[in-house]
């Protein structure tokens, strides 16, 4: 699935990374606890989170996550967008809550990452 498809499915707004929307995403993860996210290896993953702070961007950076989705209409600050741009990270913002967001992506064929 591409990031553009994710954007359509979640009817999301693109906060940054417009030029990277055709990138492929293989797995997804939904969590508000960053070290829970860091516990799993994911390949070209999208992270869905309700946690809207610089640490969410940092965590995505450390994991080589390609796309971050803020659920429940949360929008990143300018500092966060700058940090995301430096790391070629796409940020989307959807009005949907966490559960329906994950459910819609799952229904459309996206799966979770693997445990090591």
């Amino acid at each position, binding site marked *: 699935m591409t990031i553009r498809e994710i954007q359509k499915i979640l009817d999301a707004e693109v906060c940054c990374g417009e030029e990277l929307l055709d990138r492929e995403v293989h797995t997804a993860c939904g969590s*508000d*606890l*960053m*070290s*829970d996210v*860091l*516990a799993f*290896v994911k390949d070209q993953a999208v992270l869905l*989170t309700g*946690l809207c*702070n*610089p*640490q*969410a961007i*940092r*965590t995505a*950076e*450390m*994991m*080589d996550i390609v796309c971050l989705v803020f659920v429940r209409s949360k929008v990143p600050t300018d*500092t966060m967008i700058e940090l995301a741009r430096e790391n070629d990270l796409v940020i989307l913002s959807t009005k949907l809550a966490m559960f329906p967001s994950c459910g819609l992506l799952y229904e459309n064929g996206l799966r979770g990452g693997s445990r*090591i």
Partner: protein
Amino acid sequence: MSDAIVLKYDVPGDDFTRAGEASSDIKQKLRKMGIPPEAIRKVAISMYEGEINMVIHAHGGQITVEITPEDVDMLLEDHGPGIADIEQAMQAGFSTAPEDVRGLGFGAGMGLPNMKKYSDEFSIESEVGVGTTVHMKVRF
């Protein structure tokens, strides 16, 4: 040794928004050096967890990173409150993080287990009232 690079970072203890800058810098340097992405990710995750721990539990500290052609060696030292029971702290899910830290996305009690899992060598020493030292190595 001529082919080792040593980098030192001061991790500020009072600014949570800046936590992760040291790990981010190392990650970029390793990428420029052409280190395999899997090894970079292991270094980035284990160092980031250690850096966050310094900020949320120990009012900051110092990180010394040594990069050689074979591996990355990370030494994380702080003069925070120390850990009374290391075995307990190492358990997945154990956390003393206060509620405000949980609201920021930390306090799952997964940091130390992650550091152990992602590094090839891991050791931790701590004394209550003196501080904590974590040593990790990731081989390429």
